[in-house]
């Protein structure tokens, strides 16, 4: 650790002071901007993010690996947050009269910080030695804190209702992660999580189970997460197909739809064509199996095709499913779909009703949430165990070089079919639960766009990993919700976010080790 000459610190010190002062001053000349921005004396709204990013200026006096890029990321984050809010203030305040002097002061401060960071010596990149081995207790604590920070960020983000503030939040999180990444924190955490995997999984599972108990009977977020859960199971299934076996399936949502129709038709819904009621556990498995059979039927002729051709043909099959569902009135009731799907019931336990547990009243959706958790857990077990077996290795080999895989003794067609069927099975299971969760099933839920979103969730989260699929589906579900007040600009912003992410992190949020190697030359290799 080395302290810089004071002269080198003058510029950023002035910037930091200006940014702190600006963040505590009013940013708006008019009332009503989210975060009480017309009032000074406290860092309301997006101003808080600026104040937190000032912490990055500590890097001007601490010499550590990757400091220049990290300091630059923090400063540019502040610039971006102030800039975005300035645009919104000008927009809503009717011109340049909208923003107050605090916003301009913050912008100047952030700019000075960025200039100071730019002038820092390039220095060395973060090295593993910057994060030396710690005693076990510290490592365990670090895993716990890391998970808590993740959950905290999710809960914090969910609680932000105003779209503009949510965008600021995303920018803040993005740049903070970039800064921490340059400091080598994530590399260290990745290694730690790998070493403490059991504990990380146990803690994550415990947090997921505890979540509904923290909502004090409020069903909203429990319901959202139950829906995300459905999406996540399908994303894990698609991750087998795309992430492991490397087969780009653009019609994947059809399998989800097959499961949903099976679930709806066998539940004795009020508006249906089939009047039977089959026990739910059987229906979940049946939905999965029917979807898997569809997967085999579609896969058998198409899996001889490669890359682009496969994508186009699967896209076609996805549309065929939707159009068939739309026209087969005798079974699917056409565009009306099956509706009035009753709540799940098992042995006198009604999944739709609120229940009391440990003195906490859980809304009906909590039951579905737990069903989803169980499905996700099962999907994770299947995914990770297959991945770490001769079957998973064969899939990855096929993705890397199909000819070499075949010459190495892998029956490529059979294994591709297997990947297709397993992915379809998972989507089918998720679909049956979704039929009950949404109480109706209709063809317009299974469009090409949904398939694309699922692929996006997998790619964005990180191909070939479970956390990637979970994070990707959460992001894809929450982002459009949160950006709702931008109305028609919503999809544009969403697209821009995807493009930015793919530009700066092409391997996805939580890539597998192998995947990271495809994009980064310096990715560490494991010991055998």
């Amino acid at each position, binding site marked *: 650790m080395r302290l810089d000459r004071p002269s080198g610190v003058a510029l950023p010190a002035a910037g930091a002071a200006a940014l702190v002062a600006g963040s505590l001053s009013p940013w708006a000349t008019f009332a009503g901007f989210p975060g009480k921005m017309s009032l000074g004396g406290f860092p309301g709204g997006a101003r808080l993010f600026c104040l937190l990013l000032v912490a990055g200026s500590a890097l001007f006096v601490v010499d550590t690996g990757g400091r220049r890029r990290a300091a630059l990321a923090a400063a540019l984050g502040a610039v971006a947050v102030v800039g975005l809010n300035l645009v919104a203030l000008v927009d809503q305040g009717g011109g340049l009269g909208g923003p107050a002097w605090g916003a301009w002061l913050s912008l100047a401060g952030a700019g000075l910080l960025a200039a100071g960071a730019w002038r820092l010596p390039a220095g060395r990149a973060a090295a593993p030695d910057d994060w030396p081995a710690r005693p076990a207790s510290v490592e365990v604590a670090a895993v716990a804190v890391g998970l808590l920070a993740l959950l905290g960020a999710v809960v914090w983000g969910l609680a932000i209702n105003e779209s503009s503030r949510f965008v600021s939040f995303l920018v803040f999180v993005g740049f903070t992660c970039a800064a921490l990444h340059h400091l080598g924190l994530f590399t260290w955490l990745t290694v730690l999580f790998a070493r403490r995997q059991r504990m990380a999984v146990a803690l994550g599972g415990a947090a997921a189970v505890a979540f509904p108990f923290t909502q004090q009977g409020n069903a909203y977020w429990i319901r959202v997460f139950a829906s995300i859960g459905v999406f996540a199971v399908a994303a894990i299934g698609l991750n087998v197909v795309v992430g492991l076996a490397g087969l780009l399936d653009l019609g994947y949502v059809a399998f989800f739809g097959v499961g949903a129709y099976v679930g709806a038709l066998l539940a004795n819904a009020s508006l249906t064509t089939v009047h039977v009621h089959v026990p739910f556990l059987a229906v979940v498995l049946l939905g999965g199996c029917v979807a898997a059979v569809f997967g085999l039927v579609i896969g058998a002729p198409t899996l001889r095709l490669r890359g682009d051709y496969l994508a186009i043909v699967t896209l076609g099959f996805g549309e065929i499913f939707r159009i068939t569902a739309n026209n087969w009135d005798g079974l699917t009731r056409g565009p009306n779909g099956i509706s009035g799907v009753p709540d799940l019931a098992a042995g006198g336990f009604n999944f739709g009703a609120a229940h009391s547990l440990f003195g906490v009243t859980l809304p009906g959706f909590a039951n579905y949430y737990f069903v989803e958790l169980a499905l996700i857990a099962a999907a994770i077990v299947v995914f990770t*165990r*297959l991945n770490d077996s*001769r*079957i998973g290795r064969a899939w990855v080999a096929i993705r890397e*070089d199909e000819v070499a895989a075949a010459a*190495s*003794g892998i029956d*490529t067609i059979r294994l591709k079919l297997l990947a297709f069927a397993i992915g379809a099975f998972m989507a089918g299971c998720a679909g049956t639960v979704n039929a009950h969760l949404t109480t109706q099933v209709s063809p317009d839920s299974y469009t090409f766009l949904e398939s694309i979103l699922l692929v996006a969730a997998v790619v964005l989260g990180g191909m070939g990993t479970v956390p990637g699929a979970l994070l990707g589906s959460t992001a894809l579900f929450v982002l459009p919700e949160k950006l709702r007040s931008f109305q028609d600009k919503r999809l544009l912003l969403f697209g821009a976010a995807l493009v930015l992410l793919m530009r700066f992190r092409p391997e996805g949020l939580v890539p597998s080790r192998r995947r990271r190697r495809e994009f980064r030359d310096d990715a560490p*290799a494991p010991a055998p």
Partner: protein
Amino acid sequence: MSPLLEVRGVTKRFEGLLAVDRVDLDVGQGEIVGVIGPNGAGKTSLFNCLSGLDAPTAGTIRFRGELLAGRPDRFTRAGVARTFQNIRLFPHMTAFENVLVGRHCRTRVGLASAIGRGPRFHREERESEARAGELLAFVGLGRLGGVVARNLSYGDQRRLEIARALASEPGLLLLDEPRAGMNAQETRATADLVRLIRDRGVAVAVIEHDMRFIFGLCDRVAVLVQGHKLVEGSPAEVQGDPRVIEAYLGAPTA
């Protein structure tokens, strides 16, 4: 006793081009057979037929007396493994994982067992890992198991490809230009490695341009010119054959 590999009248036609023309070739147990010929003579095309990557237009391939046909994995399971002229490893897998993939057709764990993780799964996995480690050491990569394949040196990549092929427990190994791009010392090491492979009871058929390498290593050499087999015999016979000299002078090669 019939030979290990019996190739009869194998022909491969691409559009108008006759790449392999009615080739007969035998490889016996414990033999090292060389295949030489000018560039474009059809050597790789012949190997593609012998390993199932391409279906011959005509002709038959018997291995241990049984007819071989169909997809490449059936050839590998029957006991014919190969390496490629342009190295084809799984570039982002580690050396160790590459060899484990080669074990695929000799392992049986299915879906249920892989998900259930019973004792059979662990036993088979341990066995595969032990064999992969042994093979890496055998080809001289004992310390490089954890290195990602594409980060290995050129020579090491060629050795890794051989280890991966050997992992499928072949009776016959097809090597397509195994010393391409190697210096003299690495070439000698490769020749030694091929002999060691033969000593393990694996017959070898090898394509090479390096005459010294071929004539010093092989028990028998076949010369391909424009798809057909010009001469076949011991290194001494082939070296002295005027037709071979003419074929090479007519079409000089690297």
